[in-house]
């Protein structure tokens, strides 16, 4: 098991290395002078020179790469042009809001999506099934920001149940914190619920066609027991897998949601960095988000051994 753990962690290194290479070459291989691109259309020559200096763009490309990789490994993600701060500090300041948003979203999602999916699978072909599937397609199609403004307008502006926008830290008190987070989390969770409910339904339906389900019925078990004890347990692996893959969707959604709800998190930072052409910050954020994504999927991979005794490494 320990051996497997080490091997699995090592296997993420090439992936992360590849991400680092992408991020590095993305700027350098862009046609034209990268420093000029970053300076923007109205960049003065001395600004361009400054950027070139700061990013080390005047050195040979391999030297740049070694320096850059070396810095990353030491935890130095560079300095933001725009905010004049170390990027790591910038990220540390913003991480709480994003993490809170993601966690509350995840809780809402799992609490809603899995029961919905199981119910739809169990009532396969009925109006309940069609309703859940219809909701799923709809949830997948309404963009986060459209839904976000819609909810704000109805629930906050008209009904005044929730604050319109903004974020309160946990330090300001748990209920205030939660009160501000519910609407953005609800908005963000819709697409994720759509995804996971759909997958849950499909996997449970597939499992219900397996031979061992027939065996379970042949033993004289009731529908409920077959569903909960035999079907859901066997459907767990694909459900957990899609939850992990969906994290990418969640990260994308965070960027948009934070803009809609004016939450000072990493997503907003990303947009600000792109608008300000603050390349060191963009690079760092991609690395951090990818690291989180890879790490979560690593955890999910490890969880397979608990969910399915056949999977041994």
């Amino acid at each position: 098991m320990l051996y497997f753990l080490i091997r699995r962690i090592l296997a993420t290194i090439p992936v992360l290395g590849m991400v680092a290479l992408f991020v590095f070459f993305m700027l350098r291989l862009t046609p034209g002078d990268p420093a000029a691109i970053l300076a923007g259309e109205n960049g003065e020559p001395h600004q361009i020179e400054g950027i070139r200096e700061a990013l080390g763009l005047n050195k040979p490309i391999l030297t740049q790469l070694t320096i850059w990789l070396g810095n990353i490994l030491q935890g130095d993600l560079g300095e933001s042009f725009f905010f004049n701060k170390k990027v790591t500090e910038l990220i540390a300041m913003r991480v709480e809001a994003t993490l809170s948003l993601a966690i509350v979203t995840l809780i809402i999602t799992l609490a809603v999506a899995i029961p919905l999916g199981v119910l739809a699978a169990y009532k396969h072909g009925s109006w309940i099934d069609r309703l859940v599937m219809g909701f799923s397609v709809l949830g997948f199609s309404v963009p986060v920001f459209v839904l976000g403004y819609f909810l704000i307008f109805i629930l906050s502006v008209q009904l005044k149940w929730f604050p319109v926008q903004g974020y309160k830290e946990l330090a300001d008190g748990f209920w205030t914190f939660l009160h501000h987070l519910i609407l953005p989390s609800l908005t963000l969770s819709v697409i994720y619920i759509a995804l996971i409910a759909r997958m849950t339904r499909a996997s449970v339906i597939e499992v219900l066609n397996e031979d061992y389900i027939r065996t379970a019925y042949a033993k004289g078990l009731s529908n409920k027991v077959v569903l909960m004890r035999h079907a859901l347990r066997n459907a767990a692996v694909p459900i957990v897998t899609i939850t992990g893959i969906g994290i990418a969707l969640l990260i994308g959604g965070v960027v948009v949601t934070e803009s809609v709800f004016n939450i000072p998190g990493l997503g907003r930072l990303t947009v600000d960095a792109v608008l300000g052409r603050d390349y060191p910050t963009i690079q760092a954020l991609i690395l951090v988000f990818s690291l989180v994504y890879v790490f979560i999927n690593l955890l999910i991979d490890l969880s397979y051994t608990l969910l399915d005794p056949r999977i041994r490494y």
Partner: protein
Amino acid sequence: MEVDSAASAAAASRPRTVLQMLVRNSSVWFGGVVLAVMLLTALLAPFMGTIDPSNIDPIYRNKVPGTERMLRLEDGSEVPIKHWMGTDMLGRDVYSRVIYGSQISLVVGLAVAVLSIVVGLVIGLVSGYIRWLDGIVMRIMDGLMAIPAILLAIALMSLFNAGLGTVIFAIFIPEIPRVVRLVRSIVLSIREEPYVESAVSVGTPLPLILIRHVLPNTIAPLIVQGTYICAFAILVEAILSFLGVGIPPEIPTWGNIMAEGRILFQIFPHNLLFPGIFLAITILAVNILGDGLRDTLDPRMAKRLG
């Protein structure tokens, strides 16, 4: 277990051709018709009772839907018009902007779908059959997959001057690995099929095997996947515009209209509402079309994903 006869019963009641099946499928109908209407709207935008979408009129700023007024044309004459969807902060007609905005969305959706399918198909076919290349290609794809698609698109936009071409490029790059993986998985399973092994043993050369026996198996799943990519591309385009990193603000796109509208949305929600509805309906139609296509063209995948 022999429910052979039951299976043949289902087969007997099944229509003969794929086309007939598609016609019978209500999702294909609904999605197809809505999408066709959208396409027509986009193509015929100038004849849909629209005015110049960038026509600024400071007097008629922030008017609510239904406001009527006289519009002075270039030749000096005046015509009465009605702002069905009101006007924005600069007095531009929201209805015209929304109608013209459909052009960008559909072009981006179709272009990204076609590009990513073609590029992904080639890479996937080659890497599925050439072992040594496979390792390298898949490592690169793993790396690309590890960067969340929307994030990558946003980051790529920071490198270019915003424009239609760069937006398409930024959305299409993150889609490639998904197509490659799909094609590769089909190739890997088809090459184990006895009929492919038979082709090998009767001396059919590799390129012919790929074209004759493998490629046809990828078409249906790729059409389905292409539809979903199209929907996702329309969504991401709107997101990029909305965040201000996509198509330049002077060009009307649904995302841009909403980005401008959000400043005063508490008072004038119509600037957000109408483009939002169009965007949601278009994506919904494409997704429903995708589900319908999947059910008819790709029953195996349909079974897996419900």
